[in-house]
């Protein structure tokens, strides 16, 4: 129910966006092969629903798996970085460098190693999520108020427990911020993976449709993808709030 309540502003936004879009199409008279009208897209959605449904299934699996693995490994990396001095010196720059590499450049190599099955796509989605999560989590873990660290020290906490019971919960708000962002980026990762090599999934469908100038079909796939991304964002948001019952959120009350 709260999820539903959380989702309604997104719905409103969606409607607003659709309105904007239709307005744009009408106002600029942009041809359909550049930007189809929402109506055309909805029509395509209806006509090709079977096709879309099939490819959506594939992509959803990739996204969800990528999101899970990406968030988890990002979190673990951040924890490891916060835990071990040595890692910070070497792993952090490597991480950074890997983040700065356009994934597209690596895609053929990944495909060579992982084949063109679902694994490669999950790896791509994972990679695109991994860095933002690792980076924001690590930033969050670093900013624990000194007083709590002092307390942990006098209470005889070892590094592991200090990390897990003090730094990690203290970093949850920052972490939530990173995860929310990652959730909405996950579909992009999967799609990039599909673009590089696949014969299934929404990304494949989009490129394929684009190559055939079936722009309405492409936008229908895009619409599904975006809806999924937004839904993931809100799901992640709800999850994060659930994990932080103590956390005051001032979205609603403050001007």
């Amino acid at each position, binding site marked *: 129910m709260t999820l539903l309540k959380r989702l309604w502003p997104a719905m409103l936004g969606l409607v607003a966006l659709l309105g904007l879009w239709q307005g744009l199409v009408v106002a600029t008279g942009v*041809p359909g*092969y*550049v930007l189809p009208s929402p109506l055309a897209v909805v029509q395509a959605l209806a006509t*090709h629903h079977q*096709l879309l449904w099939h490819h959506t299934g594939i992509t959803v699996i990739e996204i969800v798996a990528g999101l899970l693995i990406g968030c988890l490994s990002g979190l673990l990396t951040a924890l490891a970085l916060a835990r071990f001095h040595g890692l910070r010196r070497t792993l952090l720059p490597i991480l950074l460098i890997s983040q700065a590499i356009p994934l597209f450049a690596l895609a*053929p190599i990944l*495909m*060579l190693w992982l*084949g*063109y099955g679902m694994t490669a796509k999950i790896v791509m989605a994972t990679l695109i999520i991994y860095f933002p999560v690792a980076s924001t989590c690590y930033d969050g873990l670093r900013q624990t108020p000194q007083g709590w660290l002092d307390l942990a020290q006098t209470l005889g906490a070892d590094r592991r427990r200090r990390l897990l019971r003090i730094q990690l919960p203290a970093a949850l708000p920052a972490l939530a911020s990173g995860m929310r962002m990652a959730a909405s980026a996950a579909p992009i990762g999967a799609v990039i993976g*599909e*673009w*590089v*090599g*696949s*014969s299934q999934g929404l990304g*494949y*469908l989009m*490129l*394929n*449709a*684009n*190559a*055939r*100038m*079936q722009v309405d*079909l492409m936008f229908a796939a895009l619409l599904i993808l975006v809806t999924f991304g937004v839904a993931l964002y809100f799901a992640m948001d709800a999850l994060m709030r659930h994990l932080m019952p103590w956390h005051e959120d001032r979205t609603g009350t403050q001007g």
Partner: protein
Amino acid sequence: LALLLVLSGPALAAEERNGTDTPDSLKVMLDWYTNPTHAPLVIAKQRGLFQDHGLDVELISPADPSVPPKLVAAGKIDLALSYQPQLHLQVDQGLPLVRVGTLVATPLNATLVRADSGIESMADLAGKRIGYSVGGVEEVLLNTMLEHNGVAPENVEMVNVNFALTPALIGEKVDAITGAFRNFELAQMAQEGVEGRAFYIEEEGVPTYDELIFVANRDTLDAHRAAYARFMAAIGEATAWIINHPEEGWEAFKAYDPALDTPVNRKAWENTLPRFALRPAALDGQRYEAFEAFLLERGQIKAKSPLSRLAVDLNRP
């Protein structure tokens, strides 16, 4: 003769084994998403021609045409569809690739303009902006055509528009596009209500070549020679059948994937049929030597490779 026996021995053995036993499985990567230029492959699969030749063929589409040759070179897949001009560059860069068959035996590549643009010949392109999709040789081919028509290459502006060739032209973001496929992009333009005009590359000073070819890994070729030969035979049969039965062919083609059933594909189907190689395995060695020489002269490759490194005729060991 002894050598010949040794070479054909394993192939023969394989042939016999396959007649009764499990088929050879081949992974074949197309150059791009499935489209009418792939008709013989699709039809051969649809009509079971590969099975008839003891082959179990898997067709895979990439999104980036530069990937399939790499995968073949790396031994990840058996055969890939590629383009003859690219083959020369790839071999020059040391990739162990060799042409083993031809799918489309003429260039499809063309320079397109809008029919209403007032550009009547390539010579009118001086001072214009030309869009292309980076393929490696687009620039040199265009430059050759321009020079052939007395236009200095510096006088045109080339812009990479990636895969948005048709929209860029229709939307008049560029005055011409090059590297477009004459069988496809023209149909696409017509679909959007814009009539196009094509300048054919082989008529504008560029040596003719095979647009779509099958490449295999040179290092492992011998082990698969027989299977590849049978593959080409199946392609040849499929091509012949399509030409004999164009309408049935279209029906079978679109049944492969419902998404293929579009008006543009229907039109492109007709445009493509005459261009399929009727003897896919046959090799016109002169073409390869001439194009190699052309690229060398244009400074696109570092050294001239012998024909045997570029292409083989599977049926003439």
